[in-house]
């Protein structure tokens, strides 16, 4: 099973990877804040993009990998842009810079995850006094994302074995819905067992 797609390149050994997680986290947060206050101009955005590009090149994380990962913002961005197109009198340039701002922010975050192991990142967030409930949830998401993905992969493999040559795109929507439903049920059952394991180790509703 593949187990490395969330922070695939975070265990590389480059000067950027060796930087403290806290420093990189603060750098990215400041960068995103700076982006939000940036004026709409090509020079500013070239500087912002260029700075990030230098960091990416130094970190040796493949550009195509980061680019593809950063496209996760596209569906959300598309929704926002539709509303903007309706509400703004001259939306063209404004929409372009909003898109650039959002995309660069996500690219910076993907770069951060790709250069810092997730547990290190959580440790840095703890030092920044981010509430422990959020950190616990992030930790769970990280831990169980792999298991869920494993289960999903196994189920799709099983579908492949019994779909007799039909490609994924040819399968009925109903099949996908059923697979997702089963995956949800399995996740729910697992969450019950995890909660029981937590109770066995002294966890209370109040937490600690």
């Amino acid at each position, binding site marked *: 099973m593949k187990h490395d797609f969330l922070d695939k390149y975070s265990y590389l050994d480059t000067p950027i990877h060796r930087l403290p997680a806290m420093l990189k986290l603060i750098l990215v947060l400041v960068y995103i804040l700076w982006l939000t206050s940036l004026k709409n101009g090509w020079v500013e955005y070239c500087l912002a993009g260029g700075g990030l590009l230098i960091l990416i090149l130094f970190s040796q994380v493949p550009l195509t990998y980061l680019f593809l990962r950063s496209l996760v913002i596209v569906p959300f961005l598309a929704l926002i842009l539709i509303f903007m197109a309706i509400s703004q009198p001259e939306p063209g340039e404004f929409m372009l810079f909003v898109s650039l701002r959002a995309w660069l922010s996500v690219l910076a975050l993907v770069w951060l995850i790709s250069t810092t192991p997730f547990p290190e990142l959580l440790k840095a967030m703890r030092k920044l006094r981010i509430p422990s409930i959020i950190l616990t949830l992030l*930790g769970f998401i990280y831990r169980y994302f792999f298991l869920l993905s494993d289960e999903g992969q196994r189920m799709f493999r099983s579908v492949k074995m019994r779909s007799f040559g039909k490609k994924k795109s040819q399968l009925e929507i109903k099949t996908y819905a059923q697979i997702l439903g089963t995956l949800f049920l399995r996740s729910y059952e697992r969450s019950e067992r995890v909660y029981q*394991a937590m109770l*066995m180790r002294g966890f209370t509703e109040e937490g600690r």
Partner: protein
Amino acid sequence: MKSKWALELKNVSYQYPDGHQALKEISFKVAPGERVGIIGPNGAGKTTLLLAICGLIEFKGEIKIFGELLTSSNSHYLRRKLGLLFQDPNDQLFMPRIYEDVAFGPKHLGWSEEEIQRKVKATLKKLGLEGFESRSGHHLSFGEKKRCALATVLVMEPEILLFDEPTSNLDPRARREFINILKQILGTQIIISHDLEMILRLTSRVITLDKGEKICEGETQEILSNPQLMESHGLEVPASLLLKSYIS
């Protein structure tokens, strides 16, 4: 006065919300320091029984842990005396790193940071897991995961250990190593398993369940070497006992 029994079950029953009766009037006692095996076919109610002993499900009947009656109000307190090793270690390793996972229980027991560090280190060393502190659960082999899950249980030094299929899905070497570890652990133990060779090696007494009912209870070798009893409840006489009877 402390009870002479580590664990006492009296008429324990449990019914699933869909009406399926998973446990029917189960009663038995376990002495301190005793190792008891619970065997039975799939769906016999073995795992449900462990969940009831830990107070993780609401059952009918009585369960006493060192003489104290288990109720919903004192289950948090009594669970400190119990350690449950789940069948799937993925359910038990829920933190991003092994250190945090092993330290989870002690933190919730309110131990000092210094004590937690010392105990976590010692437990990992005991199980041959030195250097695993900063590793992530999902990067480990199944055998390693299983040992890490055991570390999360042992670090809290429970008085009664409950094992749910401890050797399932392990390769022969990992299985052998795991059995050797279990052999070295002292204290009261209840082991649920289909691995009857392991039950034979580790336990002195077994309880057989089938369809939620207690079928029989007795000395391990005597019960496991009874082919009629084993086969009528979806089990088999272990190969080592068959060989022994064949030679003799």
